[in-house]
């Protein structure tokens, strides 16, 4: 059982507050992805869990044991680094066996476990090579194998695929997910690639400026963003926003149209995903500016009431720049945000 509990963790670098009061629980054997823009504090949080960085305040618990005062080696974790950190002076075999040797396991046990993990990562033919003789993808596999060979309770990964080319990334993504599912470890995976996050995660924690703004399943993060930031960050193209004025009794005025919404009496922001609209007789009037046929569908960048607005439409439609489209939002996909607090409104 390796539940990870992060309680009120904050981190300052001098006068810069990198993390604000982080609270997060990661279940046993869960695959948690930390997602966020560059500089939002993902690595810092991961390194605090690993013990490579000391939090300013707060506690970290793993498997019911408080570990934030322990050195990295006593935390029951293994880590995969962004640039792999494969030891250049050791062979692949000795790299994978490094942690086992530190535990002073007998030789045959080391050999058995190294060979098994090497097989798992498909690098058994590379065992006698040095890191200088490996490709980026192979080095990546060695780094993962080295972590897995430790049979850790928790495996921490900081953008492990970011140095690979697109194709290899896709391949490794699937493979890594499979291997980790089999190994019964709890995993925390840092990335700024939302496709990677969506495809791998059991749960995604979206981070923004040192805070976790939403921790939920990929589909929930996509469908029900808890904050305007998440709505704008996740999805490509991102969600559309328009100002909305209440006209009473749950009716809202959005770009000259009347729509049904929450029964509140203050201005809100209307939000809709580009693919959640259809061409129809009644709806938002959008003047097409740029039309991009993407094969599977048509991406139209338009203007609604002077605001930039995107729609993903069927690729059979004929749309030219200058056309005025009438777009009807799918009612149950409409989301509302408070313009002041930026929180979602039910």
């Amino acid at each position, binding site marked *: 059982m390796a539940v990870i509990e992060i309680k009120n963790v904050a981190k300052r670098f001098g006068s810069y507050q990198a993390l604000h009061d982080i609270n997060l629980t990661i279940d046993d054997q869960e695959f948690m992805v930390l997602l966020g823009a560059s500089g939002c504090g993902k690595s810092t949080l991961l390194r605090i869990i690993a013990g*490579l960085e000391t939090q300013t305040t707060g506690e970290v618990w793993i498997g019911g044991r408080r570990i934030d005062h322990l050195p990295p080696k006593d935390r029951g974790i293994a880590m995969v680094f962004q640039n792999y950190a494969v030891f*250049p*002076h050791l062979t692949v075999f000795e790299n994978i066996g*490094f942690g086992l040797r530190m*535990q002073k396991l007998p030789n045959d046990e080391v050999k058995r476990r190294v060979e098994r993990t090497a097989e798992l990562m498909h690098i058994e033919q590379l065992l006698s090579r040095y890191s200088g003789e490996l490709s980026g993808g192979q080095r990546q596999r060695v780094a993962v194998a080295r972590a897995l060979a430790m049979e850790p309770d928790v495996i921490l990964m900081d953008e492990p695929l970011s140095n690979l080319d697109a194709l290899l990334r896709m391949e490794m993504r699937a493979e890594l997910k499979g291997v980790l599912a089999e190994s019964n470890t709890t995993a925390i995976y840092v990335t700024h690639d939302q496709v990677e996050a969506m495809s791998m995660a059991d749960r995604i924690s979206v981070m923004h400026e040192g805070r976790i703004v939403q921790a939920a399943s990929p589909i929930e993060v996509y469908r029900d963003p808890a904050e305007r930031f998440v709505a704008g960050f996740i999805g490509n193209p991102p969600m559309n926003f328009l100002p909305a004025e209440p006209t009473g009794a749950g009716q809202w005025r959005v770009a000259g149209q009347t729509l049904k919404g929450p029964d509140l009496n203050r201005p809100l922001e209307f939000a809709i995903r580009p693919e959640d609209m259809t061409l129809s007789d009644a709806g938002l009037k959008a003047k097409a500016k740029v039309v991009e046929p993407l094969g599977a569908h048509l991406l139209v960048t338009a203007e609604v009431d002077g605001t930039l607005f995107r729609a993903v439409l069927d690729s059979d439609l004929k749309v030219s720049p200058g056309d005025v489209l009438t777009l009807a939002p799918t009612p149950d996909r409409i989301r509302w945000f408070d313009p002041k607090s930026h929180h979602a409104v039910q």
Partner: protein
Amino acid sequence: MNAETRSSGRFLYTASVVLLCAWVIVPLYLLLINTLSSPETVNSFPKPFWPEFDLGSLSFFAGFEGMLTALKNSILVAAMTMVMSIAIGAPAGYALSRFDFPGKGLFRLLILLTRAFPLPLLALPLAVMFIRTGLDDTVFGLALVHTTLAIPFSVLITFSLFSGIPIELEEAAWTLGCTRLTAFTKVVLPLILPGITASAIFAFVISWNEVFAAAVLTIENRTLTAFLLQNLDTSPLHLKFAGGFILVVPALIFIFAVRKYLFAMWGIANR
């Protein structure tokens, strides 16, 4: 640019390279001729322009009163300097490359100041201090002064060496069950060892070549440089040349041994 000017440019270039190599090598060759000639030839005129391979001068050197002791002292002092400057300097180099700490700027200033200061001048007060502590005229006392001389280099060189080793390698070792110490010995040390050796040799040569402090601080236990300096006016030519030759040989080996690191260490130490 036509072919003619290009080929004449190439000729000029090659000629200058050859000329500059000759500029370095010919004086060394002339010293070699003198060393490998009999004392009579060395003092005769005119000189031959090739060596007669006579070991007379060298054996005279070996037999000269006090010369072998001086050679032994030189080696001892240089070896001590080498060990001390690395043992004391390398931890500081590591600290500079791995930590940001208040006072780091001040510490670097102290190191640079030491490098920029005409250090042999300090031999004068140290002589007084050593007499009080009984370190005067000892090999160890001189090694202490030479270590002061070599330390700025050993700190700056090891600093740049350690900076060349990604911190992630150490961090990976920590997550794989190492303490700070075992991560250092199992990961950093094997990677850094050739560079450390180079910087140790550098320290050796700094001490080996130092004249002023050695002359000031030793009387009975002269090093080779101090001994040669002291007997410069009185010793015969063939003794000077043989001694000079013995001084030069380690230099040839030294530059050969560290040639790979010579440029890397200055490249970073500059900033």
